[in-house]
């Protein structure tokens, strides 16, 4: 399929309102933090809507949004930028963070604990009242405009002790905690996102709750709302419910044959 269009990261506006179902007062808290130039930490298990929430806020605040999925080789210069060689000359190219600061965007560092420790060097001065980004290679200090906002996400559930968020980092942020929505909200989300009918939606929600009962007794995590939505989409497209929950949920959760069998049978008992 041909690429429809490419845009520069700094111009990535969220144009259509993303579907987001507020669980608590997170929308107000985010807006208030944004108005007061405070950085934001989103905590919560995978697939409970952290990224969707940021998209929604970017749309609501009408700011461009830059997302960086952090990985264990991500260094400070990957965020800030580096010199590249072009036609015998060296040219400075902004990294996504610098780019976001320059344009007053919302910069979202997803799973920030995965990144290398030296990234804190650039995050720290940006996150206190100085709001500056030191660009060592250029010998510059960049003052962030009021529109700029830094948000990071962090899953306290399954990271190893080696990858905990340091106090000196986390104590710079306004922290918003995310959990799985309650059954009614979750049903609403599934109906909206996957377009299944209400009766089926209720069954999917019930199934999700059953897998969460197994958390700690064999599963590391229960099915996230995202997985439930995925299963709903498959069912809506004509896949048999038990096959859909097996592929979209059970196998995504675990490789353990005993657990797979249990989750499969739970699905069979509902659908």
């Amino acid at each position: 399929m041909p690429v429809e269009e490419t845009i520069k990261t700094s111009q990535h506006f969220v144009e259509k309102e993303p579907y987001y179902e507020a669980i608590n007062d997170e929308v107000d808290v985010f807006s208030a933090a944004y108005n007061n130039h405070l950085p934001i930490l989103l905590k919560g298990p995978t697939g409970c809507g952290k990224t969707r929430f940021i998209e929604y806020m970017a749309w609501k605040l009408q700011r461009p949004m830059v997302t960086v999925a952090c990985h264990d080789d991500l260094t400070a210069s990957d965020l800030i930028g580096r010199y590249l060689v072009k036609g015998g000359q060296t040219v400075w190219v902004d990294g996504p963070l610098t780019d976001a600061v320059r344009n007053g965007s919302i910069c979202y560092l997803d799973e920030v604990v995965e990144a290398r420790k030296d990234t804190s060097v650039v995050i720290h001065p940006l996150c206190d009242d100085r709001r500056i980004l030191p660009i060592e290679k250029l010998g510059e200090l960049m003052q962030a405009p009021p529109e700029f906002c830094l948000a990071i996400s962090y899953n306290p559930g399954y990271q190893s002790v080696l990858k905990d968020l340091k106090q000196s980092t986390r104590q710079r942020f306004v922290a918003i905690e995310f959990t799985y929505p309650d059954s009614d909200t979750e049903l609403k989300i599934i109906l909206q996102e996957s377009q299944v009918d209400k009766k089926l939606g209720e069954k999917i929600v019930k199934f999700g709750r059953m897998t969460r009962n197994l958390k700690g007794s064999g599963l590391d995590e229960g099915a996230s709302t995202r997985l439930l939505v995925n299963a709903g989409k498959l069912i809506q497209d004509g896949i048999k419910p038990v096959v859909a929950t097996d592929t979209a949920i059970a196998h995504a959760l675990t490789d353990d044959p005993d657990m797979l069998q249990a989750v499969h049978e739970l699905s069979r008992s509902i659908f």
Partner: protein
Amino acid sequence: MIDNSKQNFLNRVRVQKDLEGASGESAVNLTNIDTLVSEIAELTPEDQQFLFEQCRSLSETNDELLKSFVTQAPKAFSLMASKGVQQWVDNAITMYDNKGLGSAVEIIEQVEQYAEEYSNRGIRCDFDEASTFIRNFVTGLGGRELKLAVDSESFTDTESLYLPDSFDLFPVADKNFSLYKLTATHLWAQTWYGTWRSKVVEKILKTSDTNQRLAKFNRLECIRLEAQIERDLPGLYRQFRAMDSEETEGKKIWDDWKSRAARLQRPGAKALDSLELVDEFAEDIVLPPLQPYQGEMHVNRVYEILSERIEREKEEFQSALQDLIDDENSLTEGTEDASKKIELELIEDEDGGAGDTKFQMSLDGEIINIPEHLQDLLGSIMQDLGEIPEDYMEPNENGEYSDKLTEQTETDENDVASDGEDGEIFRYDEWDCTRQRFRQRFCSLRELSIPLAESEFVDETLIKYKGILKSIKRTFEAILGENRLQRRQLDGDGIDLDAVIDSFADLVSGNETSEYLYTRYRNKERNIAVMFMIDMSGSTLGWVNDAERESLVLLCEALELLGDRYAIYGFSGRTNKRCEVYKIKEFGQKYSDEVKQRISGIRPKAYTRMGVAIRHLGHLLNQTQARTKLLITLSDGRPEDYGGYKGKYGIEDTRHALLEIKQAGIHPFCITIDNEAQDYLPYMYGKVNYAVIDEVPKLPYKVADIYRRLTT
């Protein structure tokens, strides 16, 4: 003809001789030995060999058992193949280990019965096969955690599901497995849909002809639960239907009952409704036959568990409420307000499954989050009572929910008790080399805590080994340095683009260029979990014990620096009934003062039963996630315990335990101060996986050094 009978005679002589060789005098003295010998002589040579092997291993176990085996053996071979015979003997030996000679001989003598069971086994589903699945499945369905146990009948006491030890009702194994699942589900449904609400139980117990009424109540509940399951778990409902028997007479009675008890099938029907209906069925003498998955009811067992739990959970509930208030008070310091009141509001009452009911909790009008354990508690109380009674929410005359002071002293006493006798008991198999098989669930092991001692010992050690500690720390720091990606190297595996571009920029602007343009990777990340297993046997008394403790202190200091995950456990014990491991530091626990005090508190205890400790600690180690897992034993001698656990037996069991954990991906290693260790350690741990330290005082810094070598 003569040749033939001569051959037979020679055969018999040979068999008798072999039998005597394998089983000693005792078998040959049997009264009917001649008949037996001629029967054995007719077996195939393979079967004969096999029989003699069994005799050899049984002669190590018990003479009586051996005799009855020899008597029954020819019959056994006529009924089963050698694999079946093997299992029959294994079964008898396990029974001998667990229940004594009488039960074991019984198994041997009932060989026909065993053979029949054995031939059914292909289609049979055993409890052990199904239990893991059922546990997961029932947990997934929801509600309070239910234990599984074996019993001759299927029923529940609301805390455990009792299931038969096997099902062989259907000629297909899968269907027998399904039957297990559905039986468990039916019992689960009783706990989930309120069959055993306390009101119901009390009412049943008050009636005069309890048993008769209970039988009818059971049938009516089957009708009600079936309807609930049809609504909530339609997939399961279909599986239930597929399992129903085809028998028409029974079906007719069921249909009759169902039509008369139609109101039980409506949403919102309660167990109390079933109980009321029992009177309407007073005249019925013929009851509908229970389906195979519909268990029995034992109301007295339920009552015992229920009344104990209701009381306990009320206390727990109120103490949890008090915790909430205490937390709140500690936030608003100084203004301790005794009149704080918690209110609970029901937001959503789901049909049937009361454990799913949702609550909103408010403290002085402000909505608060319900902590997870309180949520579980609420669920469990709802399952028993169907409501949270008002007096649960009423503070006592002091305005408090729970009197912490008295409770605290009580738990203190409990703690002392649990240090002594109580606590969870883990059972492990032990390898018996003389019989070449496991003694099943032979060892009982408890996890105990070490009493805290003064932590001065730690400080003293740190001062005593100041110099060594410094050098240990330096070498360990070097390990850490090695693990990063090293940029700007003179040579290496990759090109450091940043360095190249920098030097290019330098070149363009006419500056001096650098030669350090490469990157080099070392081991990317330390992903190590290590378990230290400390010998606390009586023989370590004195300086060995001191050296062990000092080693641990230095090691902890070093490991904190590295960030490796580590745990420390001591082990000792006396006989297979009292194996003990002592928690010193668990994985995930910080190297806190408490840990230091425990290290100081390590004292010599009893004997060294190593196998069971290795199995237990290996199991614990396996539950942590790490790429590299190490089990390091600090020991002063060979495995030894009361009751024959010495010499070859002890070494073989330890070796077997080590092989088991190796298969699970754990690297065992042993550090010992026993100068004779060369004789047995290579056999147990392998040629390279041990270190002998010839002088006790060297232990402390050697241990750290060995650990460094092991993990770099």
